[in-house]
């Protein structure tokens, strides 16, 4: 009896101890698993806020910590920072936000995401973007949101002055001039016709490529690597754009980026604006002076036989090869690119999903009525020649936008500038072999 009691007590004690040990192991195990992951978020418009929201939701769900970092608004500036960090093998940032033209430049520093993303999930994204993000068979970046240039306009002002939305650049210039002058006469002295992004930064490359492509003037460098920019259509496109400066566009656009243009448009001082889709939610925010007065459409055609186009933009998420927690970082990427999160971002901030099915989602169509037409714009979007020019893309883009900037500021004729550019790029490419 005494023995039995002692045995029972010993068993109980052992069980308790084992239970405690197990519980302790579980707790410490959990603590070891809870990692801190750092993500670099964008800062244009609401991007940072939305990025932090998504990342924190993931952290709560996954039981990890997340740190959000911010960088410069200009893409090529950010690329510069990233290149320095990555070439130094820095492990401070786990998840990088990558522009659509970067996978070729930075790809070598990122892990292959294929093991973390099921194939059937990947196939729901725009195939062109997935292909863009696949470098030498490795999925170096996961599509997050996509972009193309759009034309915003003040529906109320066009109606007030009896004008129709323009279909060509020529019509845009006429309507813009008419409304601008009428509004100025009516006492609205700050009114301008058209704002876009012409600072000599990556954004000017996007704007100018749209003009050239809308006139069917090609893509600077063809897919085969041939430099094609010196052609009559491109000359016509640049001459058209240069004629806007100081007539319908303020001279200041020559130093505008996205947010400068949005500042002018959203404060009610512009009739037309070229910008990315993110500006929609902000222009219709409760505190926006132009709330409910704005409409969006595809960018105008270059003449009757031109085409509607937009430069393909968009951002991806990549996991650094130097990350200390690549698997956990990949999980964050998986969460942020999931249908639920992409839908939330599209509803709250009009970031365009990279999942085709979401463009038919009734909730989204209600919040962003332009999505139906946008699907077409995305299929017609023109890509920058980043894949064919590879690591030399930054230089190609800089030479192109400098030539364009010279034309826009009236310091050079389009013919001679494009001829010079052609020679420069041909020398850079070593006769098309990039």
């Amino acid at each position, binding site marked *: 009896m005494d023995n039995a009691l002692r045995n029972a007590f010993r068993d109980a004690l052992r069980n308790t101890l084992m239970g405690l040990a197990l519980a302790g192991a579980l707790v410490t195990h959990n603590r070891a698993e809870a990692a801190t992951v750092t993500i670099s978020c964008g800062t244009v418009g609401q991007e940072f806020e939305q990025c932090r929201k998504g990342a924190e939701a993931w952290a709560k769900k996954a039981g990890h910590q997340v740190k959000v970092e911010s960088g410069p608004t200009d893409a*090529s500036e950010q690329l510069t920072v990233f290149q320095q960090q990555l070439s130094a093998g820095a492990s401070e940032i786990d998840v990088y936000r990558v522009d659509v033209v970067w996978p070729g430049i930075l790809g070598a520093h990122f892990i292959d995401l294929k093991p973390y993303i099921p194939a059937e999930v990947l196939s729901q994204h725009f195939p062109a973007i997935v292909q863009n993000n696949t470098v030498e068979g490795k999925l170096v970046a996961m599509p997050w949101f996509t972009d193309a240039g759009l034309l915003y306009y003040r529906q109320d002002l066009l109606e007030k002055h009896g004008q129709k939305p323009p279909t060509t650049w020529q019509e845009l210039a006429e309507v813009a001039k008419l409304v601008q002058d009428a509004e100025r006469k009516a006492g609205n002295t700050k009114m301008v016709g058209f704002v876009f992004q012409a*600072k000599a930064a990556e954004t000017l490359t996007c704007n100018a490529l749209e003009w050239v492509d809308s006139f069917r003037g090609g893509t600077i460098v063809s897919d085969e690597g041939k430099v094609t920019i010196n052609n009559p259509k491109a000359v016509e496109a640049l001459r058209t754009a240069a004629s806007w400066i100081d007539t319908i566009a303020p001279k200041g656009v020559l130093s505008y980026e996205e947010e400068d243009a949005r500042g002018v448009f959203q404060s009610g001082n512009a009739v037309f604006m070229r910008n990315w889709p993110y500006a929609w939610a902000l222009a219709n925010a409760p505190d926006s002076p132009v709330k409910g007065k704005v409409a969006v459409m595809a960018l105008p055609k270059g003449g009757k036989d031109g085409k509607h186009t937009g430069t393909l933009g968009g951002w991806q998420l990549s996991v650094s090869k130097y990350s200390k927690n690549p698997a956990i970082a990949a999980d964050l990427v998986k969460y942020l690119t999931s249908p639920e999160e992409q839908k939330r971002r599209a509803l709250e901030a009009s970031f365009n999903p990279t999942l085709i099915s979401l463009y038919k989602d009734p909730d989204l169509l209600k919040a962003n009525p332009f999505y139906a037409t946008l699907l077409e714009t995305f299929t017609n979007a023109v890509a920058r020649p980043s894949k064919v020019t590879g690591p030399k893309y930054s230089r190609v883009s800089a030479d192109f936008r400098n030539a364009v900037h010279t034309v826009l500021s009236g310091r050079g004729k389009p013919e001679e500038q494009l001829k010079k550019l052609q020679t420069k790029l041909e020398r850079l490419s070593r006769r098309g072999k990039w």
Partner: protein
Amino acid sequence: MSAPGAPVPITPASPAGAETLKKETRPPSRSSLLERQRVRSAWMFLLPTLVVLAGVAGWPLLRTFWFAFTDANLSDLEAAQYVGVDNFILVMEDPTWWRSVWNTFRFTGVSVALETVLGMLIALTLNTRFPGRGIMRAAVLVPWAIPTVVSARMWGWMFHDIYGVINAMLLSVGLLSQPMAWTADPELSMAAIIAVDVWKTTPFMALLLLAALQMLPEEIYEAAKLDGANRVRVFFQITLPLIRGPMLVAIIFRVLDALRVFDLFYVLTTNSSESMSMAVYARQQMFEFQDLGLGAAAASLLFAVIALFTVAYLSLARVTAEEGA
């Protein structure tokens, strides 16, 4: 005022320091035991500084020089190969580089000249006795205390063509009939940059000149007063010759600083190839285009320009000093 990350060279010792050192280490003739001991302990005290300088200034500088002779690329530093003076030739052949050299020199010349004149006026004002002088002296330093990027960004907003306060002010007093695009045009943005630099660094100049003015003995001025010299004459014949040395030091400080200007150009221009400074050019080659070799060559040339300037200035200053003696 230095480029983030870019190994833009800094001249290690100030010319003033160099002069005093030379005087001390050039004793008339025989060196006594005591003298030698003093020299030794001086080196002992200098040693930690020299080690730190070699580590944080010398090493990066030498590395930059080395990269200038290679085809180093930022994406793969290990694969760098020696290419001789190719990079220097490429930079010299680039019209954009010469444009940036011209921009930098123009900026340096105009801004330092304005800062010297304005700084002198402020220093003379602050040197007179008036109530609240202490507060005034502290207050003028405020623009100088703000980091350049911050003030450049701030001025960027003020210069904005549609909602900037500068245009609003000039329009309301009738100096302009329509808003100017201050930061869009290369000529106007140069004026804007110079204005911001003058606003920012004149206090520094004024402070150095004020320190020089305060060392001047009162008696000379009293004597001049008795002789009946007017204020302008006193300034040009007494004050200016007496503070010439410190003034030249202040000017060279500003010139060296202005030659490696980065942030003002970077923030306040369109960044087009027409409106770059030498440091901005080097940065673009190095980081945006990943061409570390070419960027290093440009940075080395910038260093050479600054070094040349310093040497020429020092020898010139010595010649005039000896003439004066």
